[in-house]
């Protein structure tokens, strides 16, 4: 079974190398097949990695011929294995969905480039998850930024170009800040490997208190821009709402999450629980997360387009994750990671369902989508289950993360914050329920609509169904998943 140790690196290599075969292919159908095939192989490899980890525990993997402080190193633990599995599974399902619909939003001659970018994007996200080397993570952040800009602009419309430029400028600023944070850490400790930086920091943190504060702040703000922490989220609604449906699903479900995982690694792995607790940075994350939870929902209520509503909802949901990180106890951190999993599956399903509605009806305004439930009952039904999870109905993952986040905030002694969680849930209901209610009910809404006249075929809806089933399974098996995350955290 020692071959299994190579699988994480093999996943990244397969995705990167196969990406460049795509522009050489003549027919789009082969490109799609190759993309789906390589993503499926990565999924199988990630499942093997997870099985290997559950049997043998976490391990460090040496990349190349040099040992740890000099060469690059991967750290593959429980959390990394779960994340790899989540990323590849969600990406496979999204790609499967996009096989049927991508030509409607992307020009024929751009399809091979689109799948090239998706493969590179997933490869670099997996790299960011696995890598134990800060500078290597930074390189993967840059690759992610460029590739995700590419999959937004591929639609080639005016609004896409504007949104992409905004995203590109803000993200470059973010990665610049992260690089400065890494430079400070390197200056103090003389290492780029996270394990070694942690060892050095434990020795010198009393001397370099202010510098460490600055480094933590720079990394937090930089990654905050990348993953849409509340006041830095301005690029997100434009970028996510104008992109093709499958791109928005990938961007919202996966691209936002990998930098958050990196932030968790930096704050709790590089600095460590004992040191980071004394810093003011956790309070900042907590406050911004709480504000994001409420303001994201408030802004979502005011939106008129369905994809913008879902995009603003991402801001609110990312707020929950930052809230969990900011609480500074083990339960909060566990729930932050659990919410990453739950939100990735739910939000990708919501974006794909919304994309299906827009694609079939040709309308994207909420006011024009009334009565869609009669024309597309199954699609809106799947959308409804996803929305219920976002609002927080028991069994579904949204409820579980909200419940345990409340418990975690009681543990941390912050009783006021439970009010914020409650309020955010109510606000979530306020913008998701009108879409569903107006879709299914109302005499005038349904007038003139023919039952199932616009429905997608079952074949095309299958990936969407599997995402929803996966979401329910995550909710039902939440205890086991949380136990696994706890094993990974220790």
């Amino acid at each position, binding site marked *: 079974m*020692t*071959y299994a*140790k*190579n699988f994480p*690196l*093999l996943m990244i*290599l397969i995705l*990167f*190398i196969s990406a*460049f*075969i795509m*522009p*050489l292919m003549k027919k789009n159908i082969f490109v799609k097949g190759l993309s789906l095939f390589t993503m499926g192989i990565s999924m199988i490899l990630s499942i093997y990695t997870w099985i290997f980890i559950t049997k043998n525990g976490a391990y460090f*993997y*040496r*990349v*190349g*011929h*040099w040992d740890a402080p000099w060469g690059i190193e991967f750290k593959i633990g429980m959390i990394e294995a779960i994340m790899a599995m989540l990323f590849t599974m969600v990406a496979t399902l999204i790609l499967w969905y996009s096989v049927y619909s991508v030509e409607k939003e992307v020009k024929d001659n751009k399809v091979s480039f689109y799948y090239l970018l998706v493969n590179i994007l997933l490869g670099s996200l997996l790299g960011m998850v696995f890598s134990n080397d800060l500078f290597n993570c930074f390189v993967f952040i840059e690759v992610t930024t460029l590739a995700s800009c590419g999959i937004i602009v591929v639609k080639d419309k005016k609004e896409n170009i504007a949104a992409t430029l905004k995203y590109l400028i803000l993200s470059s600023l973010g990665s610049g800040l992260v690089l400065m944070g890494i430079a400070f850490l390197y200056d103090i400790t003389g290492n780029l490997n996270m394990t070694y930086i942690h060892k050095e920091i434990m020795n010198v943190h009393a001397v370099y208190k202010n510098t460490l504060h600055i480094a933590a702040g720079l990394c937090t703000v930089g990654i905050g821009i990348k993953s849409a922490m509340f006041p830095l989220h301005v690029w997100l609604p434009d970028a996510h709402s104008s992109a093709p449906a499958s791109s928005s699903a990938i961007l919202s479900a996966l691209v936002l999450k990998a930098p958050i995982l990196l932030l968790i690694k930096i704050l709790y792995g590089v600095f460590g629980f004992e040191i980071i607790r004394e810093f003011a940075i956790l309070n900042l994350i907590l406050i911004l997360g709480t504000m994001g939870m409420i303001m994201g929902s408030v802004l979502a209520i005011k939106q008129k387009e369905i994809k913008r509503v879902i995009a603003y909802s991402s801001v609110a949901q990312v707020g929950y994750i930052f809230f969990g990180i900011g609480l500074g106890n083990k339960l909060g951190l566990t729930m932050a990671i659990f919410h990453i999993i739950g939100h990735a599956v739910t939000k990708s399903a919501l974006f794909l369902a919304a994309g299906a509605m827009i694609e079939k009806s040709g309308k994207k305004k909420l006011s024009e989508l009334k009565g869609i439930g009669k024309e597309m009952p199954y699609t809106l039904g799947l959308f409804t289950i996803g929305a219920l999870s976002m609002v927080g109905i028991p069994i579904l993952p949204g409820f579980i993360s909200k419940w345990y986040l409340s418990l975690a905030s009681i543990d941390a002694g912050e009783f006021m914050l439970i009010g914020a969680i409650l309020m955010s849930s109510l606000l979530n209901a306020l913008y998701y329920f009108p879409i569903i209610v107006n879709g299914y009910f109302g005499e005038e809404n349904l007038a003139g609509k023919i039952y199932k006249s616009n429905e997608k075929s079952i074949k095309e809806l299958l990936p969407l169904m599997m995402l929803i089933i996966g979401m329910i399974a995550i909710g039902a098996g939440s205890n086991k998943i949380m136990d696994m995350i706890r094993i990974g955290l220790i």
Partner: protein
Amino acid sequence: MHNTILKEISKIIIPFIQIFGLYVIFHGHLSPGGGFAGGTILGTSLILYRMVYERERTREKLSYKKLMTCMCGALIIYGILKGYSFITGGSHIDLPQLPLGKPGNILSGGYLLPLNMAVGIIVSVTVYFFFSLFYEGEI
């Protein structure tokens, strides 16, 4: 540009630029330079050709498809070579590696020479693509 002097001079000068670029690429592991530096020099020769001989004639010689094939091939070779090196090194497998050779020879330095060549091709094509996209908006 319809200028006979320019055309005749560039006929002489372009091969020299290309030879210098190839020299920098092939001596990347022995002297300053390497794939990136040599690739940009090669790329400038392509750019000069494009500027002097206009779009149509350049397209006959350097078609988009041909360049794209070169670039993707080089990227795939780079990925496979480096990936092989990473994996054999990472899991301590004793599979055959490229020989290190005698220091100072061109055929030495293990993976450096083939990787430099791949980088050189990628960079020269990319530089040319960038130029033509900014110059005329199409390749």
